[in-house]
């Protein structure tokens, strides 16, 4: 059933990574991505990988969950790996057959790229696994708030995100209900050509749109009744505070970042 799909990847917990300020998490994730891309030798990358591993262990996210988020990326990792393996012609050849040849440089580049992508996925998944979507939205709004000065509607965008998150479960439930109702009237959504199946969606999509508009209208009214008048003069109940965990995380990341730079220069 559609209802069973869990929305977002948030995995609630109380680890130090969970407790960090979401703004700090976003900034440090960005720093981490830069770290992965500036390291241009395998030693630098290993420092990045060590950083990923340590953070992952601290977060206490189950290994199984992490595999799940890597699974969809696996074909890409394999594809780029093979590409690097067979089409890098420089370096000492190990093996040659027709146009294909595998060189030592090809192997090291393939491994290098694979490790980089895996670290990238694990690192960014850690952000979404340890931060609730609401906290993320909140943090993005605050980080982007300087952009309000150049007339970017930061508050409006964040509000839209919040409402979307709120209504996803409601709409999923509704879709489920409409599907059951149309099935009860003999709608057939499982057999027939692609064209026929696409047409079979009309009895589901039309009511869904109609009801979404109705919901939007009612919600807008309810928001107005609760004094909503845009982002101007708005305060927030929850204040984000940088705490000791965040300062520690900054230092921790800085040390690893420095390690990467040093290794880049030395080797």
């Amino acid at each position, binding site marked *: 059933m559609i209802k069973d799909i869990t929305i977002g990847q948030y995995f609630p917990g109380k680890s130090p990574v969970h407790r960090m300020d979401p703004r700090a998490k976003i900034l440090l994730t960005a720093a981490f991505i830069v770290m992965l891309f500036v390291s241009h030798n395998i030693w630098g990358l290993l420092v990045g990988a060590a950083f990923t591993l340590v953070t992952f262990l601290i977060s206490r996210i189950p290994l199984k969950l992490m595999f799940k988020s890597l699974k969809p990326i696996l074909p890409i990792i394999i594809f780029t790996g093979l590409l690097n393996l067979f089409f890098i012609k420089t370096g000492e050849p190990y093996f040659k057959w027709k146009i294909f040849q595998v060189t030592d440089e090809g192997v090291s580049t393939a491994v290098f790229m694979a490790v980089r992508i895996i670290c990238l996925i694990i690192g960014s998944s850690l952000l979404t696994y340890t931060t609730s*979507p*609401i906290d993320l939205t909140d943090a993005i709004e605050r980080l982007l708030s300087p952009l309000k000065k150049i007339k970017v509607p930061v508050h409006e965008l964040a509000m839209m995100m919040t409402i979307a998150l709120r209504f996803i*479960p409601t709409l999923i439930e509704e879709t489920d209900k409409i599907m059951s109702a149309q099935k009860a009237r003999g709608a057939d959504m499982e057999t027939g050509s692609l064209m026929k199946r696409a047409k079979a969606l009309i009895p589901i999509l039309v009511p869904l749109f109609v009801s979404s508009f109705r919901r939007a209208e009612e919600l807008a009214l309810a928001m107005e*009744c*609760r004094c*909503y*008048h845009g982002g101007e003069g708005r*305060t927030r109940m929850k*204040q984000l505070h940088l705490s000791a965990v965040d300062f520690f995380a900054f230092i921790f990341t800085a040390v690893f970042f420095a390690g990467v730079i040093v290794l880049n220069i030395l080797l």
Partner: protein
Amino acid sequence: MDSFLKAEGLWFSYINEAEDPPVKTEVLKGVDLDIKKGEFVAILGYNGSGKSTLAKCFNAINIPEKGKAYVDGIDTSDEERLLDIRQRVGMVFQNPDNQIVATIVEEDCAFALENMGVPPAEIRQRVDDALKTVGMYDYREHAVHKLSGGQKQRVAIAGIIAMRPECILLDEPTAMLDPAGRREVMKTIKMLNREQGVTIVLITHYMEEAAQADRVVVIDSGEIMLDGAPKQIFTQVQTLRNLGLDVPQVTELCYELKKAGVDIAQDIIGEEECAKALFELLK
């Protein structure tokens, strides 16, 4: 007592611009109504009688076409005072799903206060108070979509009372709930009225709910037909039926018995008094 909500010769129409020429539907036709501070008023009427439209005139969602609507002496057509009006008169709607903005209970409850620019520490305090009042404090960190209908509706009420309004308008708040949810909501509404002195305007189709109010107003085709204490209203069984409305079963019973020649009081609207009257008759 002071008048809190006041309508004077109120007219309101909806204009459907999609039609050519635009079609105008008159919904309210000269409504005069005066609701006092601390009153609990139930509004009855069939769907389309204009009762929701009237309620929306009292928090400046609808601006009267003719006549005036006042909230605590403020003219609702005064745009400068819009937020003042909405802080004084909160509104709860029928569908609990479509009035909850945030994913988490306490975040939703804070929404109005955040809009009003209340300082964070005070928001926290008021949100906690409001959730305790409706008995949802233990659920403050729960996701809204996992609650029952009655619980969602109580969260919606908490979001309104966090504004500390003097009056709450409820537009069929129990229509989509099961009997248990209906009882939860009615208990909350009555408590707010009796213990906190909040003025309550309850639009409902359930006669048993209306019987619990201090005063019942019946609207028909945009005009006020009946206005009085529940005992005075519900005993007009035939008039109410003609208006497409019901009466509580106990009132109907006494009415039918009287018609059959039994000497029984005609102003019975509650179970206990009905049982007592029947007991006197049958003992």
